[in-house]
């Protein structure tokens, strides 16, 4: 007999779907089937329960480049010694783990005078900078589903990156005040490329690569009924800009979703700054909100926990015993590039695959620990790799959706025997760090 577990949370993207149905074998050890999930989410569950390709014990990099299996105790000792002896360690990642684990990690960081940074550094960090500058008028995805009739996707492609976003919240669902679903909504996509999301849009503004800021400011001027100079604004004809502005103003409830296309292209936080101001301007005519399309399933949670504990959402520097924050100085990429740190701890992220090569080289030079269930480019260059159980599959925990709604992830199967979870490993490190500091 198989067992069926309903209302499972998908620990893949920031949409955090909460309607998955997972079927396991009768011992509750192997996942047989996943329903309702997108292809990526389903694969995450299926591959987690396939133990053959997974490492189940920590490994240490040897001088000849091979890995030697070590015990969890040895891994805890190495990690604690590394963090305590470093003058300026960095603790990066935190986006693919639960809020409980993050909280323990931050306690270690505070004791060791470390830098704490999450994957927002290469993702929506610029959004957080802009939010600090001008605030954010936001709402939950439930409101989008039930009320929104004007949707803008700016520099994001949910058709591929957040596969169920459009069907659950933004384009197709029939909500309380949006009974006609897609027919009732007007979709605007702003993207330099004709993406699959752009294919289902009513208006596709094909902006010139790297000129989003100009287009956003022009839209703001158009919304105010002001003049715009030039016939073509950032690759878009002037008339089309005025037309789009009218379309936005005529809606009952609008929302802007934006992604990496604006947060990490030229201008970075200024693009988001302008987008937020556009939202705020549109509120003079109708109701408008703006939501960031967060990537990892719990990157929002990392920002929340850091914000609650230290007052800043990412790139927090605790080296002097109090929290300081300045992306550009305390961000992980910058400190690696400028060689400002002397130890690296990575949990729940893969900088080896996403950071510039210069930074990756620096990680491989430093004493380093990677905590990750998978084998990734990061685990291959770090001195110690600690495999842990999958959060959201093999252990529960609190996660935050992209609209800052906390959702409790559920455990569906048992982890391989003798494996630690992130929280257990971090608690062991914290205990050892406290002992070392006491001496």
């Amino acid at each position: 007999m198989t067992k069926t577990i309903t209302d499972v949370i998908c620990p893949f993207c920031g949409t955090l779907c909460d309607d998955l149905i997972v079927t396991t074998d009768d011992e509750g050890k192997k996942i047989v089937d996943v329903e309702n999930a997108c292809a990526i989410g389903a694969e995450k569950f299926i591959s987690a329960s396939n133990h053959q390709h997974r490492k189940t014990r920590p490994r240490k990099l040897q001088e000849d480049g091979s890995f030697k299996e070590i015990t969890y105790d040895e891994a805890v000792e190495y990690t604690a010694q590394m963090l305590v002896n470093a003058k300026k360690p960095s603790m990066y990642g935190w986006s693919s783990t639960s809020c409980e684990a993050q909280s323990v990690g931050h306690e270690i960081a505070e004791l060791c005078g470390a830098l704490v940074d999450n994957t927002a550094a290469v993702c929506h960090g610029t959004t957080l900078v802009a939010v600090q500058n001008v605030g954010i008028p936001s709402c939950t995805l439930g409101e989008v589903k039930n009320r929104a009739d004007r949707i803008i996707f700016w520099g994001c492609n949910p058709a591929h990156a957040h596969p169920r976003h459009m069907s659950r919240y933004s384009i197709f669902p029939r909500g309380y005040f949006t009974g006609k679903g897609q027919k009732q909504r007007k979709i605007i996509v702003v993207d330099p490329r004709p993406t699959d999301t752009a294919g289902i849009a009513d208006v596709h503004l094909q902006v010139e690569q790297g000129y989003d800021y100009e287009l956003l400011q022009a839209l703001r001027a158009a919304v105010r009924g002001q003049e715009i100079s030039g016939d073509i604004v950032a690759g878009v004809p002037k008339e089309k800009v005025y037309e789009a502005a009218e379309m936005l103003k005529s809606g009952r409830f609008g929302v802007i979703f934006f992604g990496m296309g604006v947060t990490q292209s030229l201008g970075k936080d200024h693009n988001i700054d302008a987008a937020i101001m556009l939202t705020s301007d549109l509120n003079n005519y109708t109701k408008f909100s703006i939501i960031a399309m967060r990537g990892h399933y719990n990157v929002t949670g990392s920002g929340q926990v850091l914000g609650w504990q230290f007052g800043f959402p990412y790139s927090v520097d605790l080296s002097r015993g109090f929290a300081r924050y300045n992306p550009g100085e305390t961000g992980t990429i910058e400190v690696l590039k400028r060689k400002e740190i002397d130890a690296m701890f990575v949990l729940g992220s893969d900088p080896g695959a996403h950071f510039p090569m210069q930074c990756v080289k620096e990680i491989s030079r430093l004493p380093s620990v990677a905590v990750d269930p998978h084998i990734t480019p990061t685990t291959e260059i770090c001195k110690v790799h600690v495999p842990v159980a999958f959060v959201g599959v093999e252990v529960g925990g609190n996660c935050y959706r992209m609209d800052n709604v906390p959702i409790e992830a559920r455990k569906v199967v048992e982890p391989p025997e003798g494996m630690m979870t992130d929280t257990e490993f971090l608690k062991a490190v914290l205990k050892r760090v406290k002992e070392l500091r006491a001496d």
Partner: protein
Amino acid sequence: MDIVKLTLTKVPGLFLEAENITPDHFAGKNAQQIGELHVHLGNQTAKISDYFSVEGKGGATAADTRIIVSGPTDKVKYIGMKMTAGEIEIQGNTDMYTAAWMAGGKIHVKGNVDSFCAIGMTGGEFIVDGNAKNYLGASYRGDWRGMQGGKIIVKGNAGSDTATFMNGGTIDIGGNVDVHLGTHAEGGKIIVRGDAKGRVGGQMVKGDIFVLGQVERMMPTYIYKGEEEAELDGKKQLFKVWIGDMGERHGKRKGEIIYGKIYIPSDGAEGIAAATHVEKKKKLTEKQLDKVKEVFKDQEPTVQQVRTYIFDSFDVDMKPMQVSRLIEGLKR
């Protein structure tokens, strides 16, 4: 005026945070007492005398104290932070936050400075003979008060995000600036004697920006308002004036809406079209190529490093693709 001479004798392994190097902290102290003041390296606390040799003594007040910092200070942050009076002279380069939140006195850096220099400055004078990087005279993250007073003079180039949230004071840049000049500005005066890359005065509410070179691409929300006479360097000159930012809120004075203004000289430029779209030189001469080769000898530089070096030293803005081809060529 009493002089304190600090010479960096030991280059720090990581970066040194030296916010105690200000006339305010040195005033009324002798060489030994100054040497006892703290510097920070990561989570460690050290003394100034661990890294610097100290000669001379501080004056009775901050205004009577002059500090001369020499040696390879490339990795020293926060020099002159929150100083209110006196003078600091730095013979070499310094790192981030030099003159941050400065309120008075004078800082003269003979080399280059890094990012976040003179952020939140309220008074005094900050002179850089070399180049400055990003966020010069800007605000701290989330603060709506950038530079509010005083004067910044940079003889070389400045980076991006210069004068974000500026609402007072003067910034004078001898060379070029990168994107985002005077974003969110609500006052103050910026003079760029070279070229500006683009996004000049984005979201600007009020304030004056003079670009004596050319603006590579003007914001679409700036409207050309004709020629106007304005005073610059004590001389009256004719400028082409653009007003904006049209997408931003603006206040009124005597019933008239006050906009931000961008001034571009009338005589120098060959018409508006030419002023807004400029093809820059994008190739290096043989001599410059040799120099690049020499600088990056025995190294594996990244594209960005080489590109920044070329932009800083020869003022040629190459595309990353061109630079990577150049590096390939040099390797051979």
